[in-house]
């Protein structure tokens, strides 16, 4: 113990006395300060473009070309992208281009007629001649088959959206990187969806 203490003392004295050490300390201090300043500068430049908003990824349904990459490129499986139904635009048709295969055998709910590979769209009869189509989000894999069908043959009420409680909000969205039509961009988290518009809620303008 004594040995250690004396050693310490000796070292202490050496440190204080050695001009080499104090110079080194000075250089160190200076470098530290300049590193801190650099960090400050980087932070300052970045702070110019700082936003307090949170941003999340979302699809612009008007740009979407239903290429199918949302289903395969998301880091989640199944994808965080799912089909959303804008009921306001729906024609409630018996012959639904999003529900039925283009050359469906019958207009029925039988498997051979359904377009959706996971049977995620439920067809409900309302009244003659109208049918309601509801998407079971837990089954939807975001393949956009129905979206393509609805856009080509119907009113375009089915469209893809990133479901925000499933999306991990990656630093860079892996679907956005591969989206051929650049339809995915960051939107403010306070307004995280781009659901297609409506007739009834539009108001007069």
């Amino acid at each position: 113990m004594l040995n250690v203490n004396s050693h310490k003392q000796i070292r202490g004295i050496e440190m204080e006395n050695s001009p080499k050490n104090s110079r080194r300390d000075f250089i160190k201090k200076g470098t530290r300060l300049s590193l801190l300043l650099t960090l400050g500068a980087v932070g300052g430049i970045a702070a110019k473009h700082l936003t307090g908003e949170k941003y999340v990824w979302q699809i612009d349904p008007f740009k979407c070309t239903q290429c199918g990459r949302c289903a395969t490129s998301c880091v989640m499986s199944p994808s965080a992208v799912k089909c959303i139904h804008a009921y306001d635009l729906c024609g409630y048709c018996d012959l639904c281009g999003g529900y039925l295969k283009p050359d469906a055998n019958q207009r029925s709910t039988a498997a051979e007629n359904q377009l959706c590979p996971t049977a995620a769209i439920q067809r409900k009869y309302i009244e003659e001649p109208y049918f309601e189509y509801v998407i079971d989000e837990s089954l939807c894999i975001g393949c956009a088959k129905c979206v393509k069908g609805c856009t080509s043959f119907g009113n375009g009420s089915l469209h893809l959206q990133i479901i925000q409680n499933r999306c991990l909000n990656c630093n860079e969205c892996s679907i956005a990187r591969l989206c051929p039509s650049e339809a995915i961009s960051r939107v403010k988290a306070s307004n995280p969806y781009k659901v297609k518009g409506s007739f009834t809620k539009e108001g007069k303008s």
Partner: protein
Amino acid sequence: MRMEHDIKLKLSFNIALVSGIFCITVALLLLLNFMQMSKNKPLESKALTSLVKRLSQEPNSDELKQEIRNFDLLARKAYFNSQWQVKTGGYLLLFGAVVMAFALRTLIGLRSKIDEPLLKNDNELISRMMTQKWVIITGTLLIFLGLVASYASVDHLKKYSVDESVVNAKPSDDQDKIEVIQVGQPVIKADSSVKVEATSNVKPNKTINPEKVVTVLSSEKIVPVIGKTAFPGSKEIRANVPSFRGPFGNGVFYTKGTPVEWDATSGKNVIWKTPVPKKGYNSPVIWENKLFLSGADNTIREVYCFDRSSGKLLWKQQVDKIQGSPAAAPKVTEDTGFAASSLTTDGNHVFALFATGDIICFDMDGKRVWARNLGVPDNHYGHASSLIMWKDKIFVQYDTNKSRKLIALKASSGETTWETLRKGKISWASPILAEISGKYQVVLSTDPMVAGYDSESGKELWSVNCMMGEVGPSPGFGSGLIFAANEYARLVAIDPIKNAKVWESDEYMPEVASPVCANGLLFIATSYGVLACYDAKTGEKYWVKEDGTGFYSSPVIADNKLYTFNTAGKMKVFEVGKTEKILGEGDATEKITTTPAFKDGRMYLRTPKYIYCIGKK
């Protein structure tokens, strides 16, 4: 103590072993599942597709339908099962890995005795030598890789030329020969008599709201539009001011009875005066009863339409929401601004270009027709060249520090019709239209050449190397010759047909104001205040007038009079003649850098804050 240690050792070893085997099993199962899934994707199985195909051939086979339903159910079950398997397998693997990690750590912790500290017996010097060797090898390798990459990769972008893209364009599958007719708009005479006459025909009817029918035309009143010409002919262009420096951009206005005297302070000959909302160095352009200007600051860009007779601001439109438009405005100098380019119009539309590269088209009522961004210009003063158009094309001199281009855009849609890459350096001069051998050419002045381009194809027709420096003045045209000049370069008269210089001079050279030629006389106004008159054909100097202040505003000729504005805002009107003769003077009392426009005996002048209409009261 020892016993306990041994038991612990054994236990942890066994746990590690079991969990390790467990992990490997789960991992293998997952891998198997993955392979199975990627090999025969249940959701897109070929079997199912072929069954459905068969169904379309025998649509009434109930057996087949049942088969499909069963298969479909199976496929979906398989898919969701495997999804579940992946999830569960993942968690099991994680659990196994955690257990194994703990067991292994304990095992190793228990096994390791407190050893004699190992003495490093590497020789530090040898080790450092090795390090140096390997670092040098790595560095060289990296450099080598970079160089190999450069030689192994091709820069296809450099190979790209516009012609190629035309050749490569998607062949149309239309085999038919389709005759294309562009339906023109009627030329509506701006006299109000038509309206009066028409409304007088209206039979009184309770529900009629005469405002609903804004323009009423009976077929006799319509001037027929011939053939494909939806665009104004040279006669109409002469009657208007569709671009910077008058019809065709050469500084000559075809109007009679212009005023020679006025005064901003006393209001003498000032018919009206209207403030312009935003700053801009562009000059007014006029079509019929409408006068157009643009203004901008670093956030907002606007196009204005004024009523020519009253000076009322008819409409004002913001230029925004353009794809590709930069979020932050590029840097421009104060004396260029964001709206230096004058507008152009074909009588049906008006087109405006800004320093952000945004080009926009409005119809005469301010309805936006199209807009695009030509790419943000890299221009150290800011883009300043004005627009001009002929037939269905708008010509944009789009010089940037990166590339020198003359672009022709389709007036109807803004699509690029052609684009000609030019040699030489960046220029700020505006293109002019010159009718040479019966065809209209776009003429541009730049360092080092003055050149003419075919307005149809963009092909360079002639080019004379004679310019130098940062060219600001646009070329002039008259007596069949092209005149180009720039300070510290020279004044040159070019015969575009012979593709040769006719004469040159280096006595008085303008910096900003462009040369103008009429009646065989050429006028030059320099930024140090000299106004010079030459013989256009020979270059003989007739007279020189020293003015204390310089000229930025281009001298123009209207009603056979030469109008000049110096930067102090003083107007001097000269006779277009071989001797100097002042016909009148005026004073704007503000700095004038823009060029006035003349129509129907009136002069329209933009000052830093106002637009003036000056005419005989």
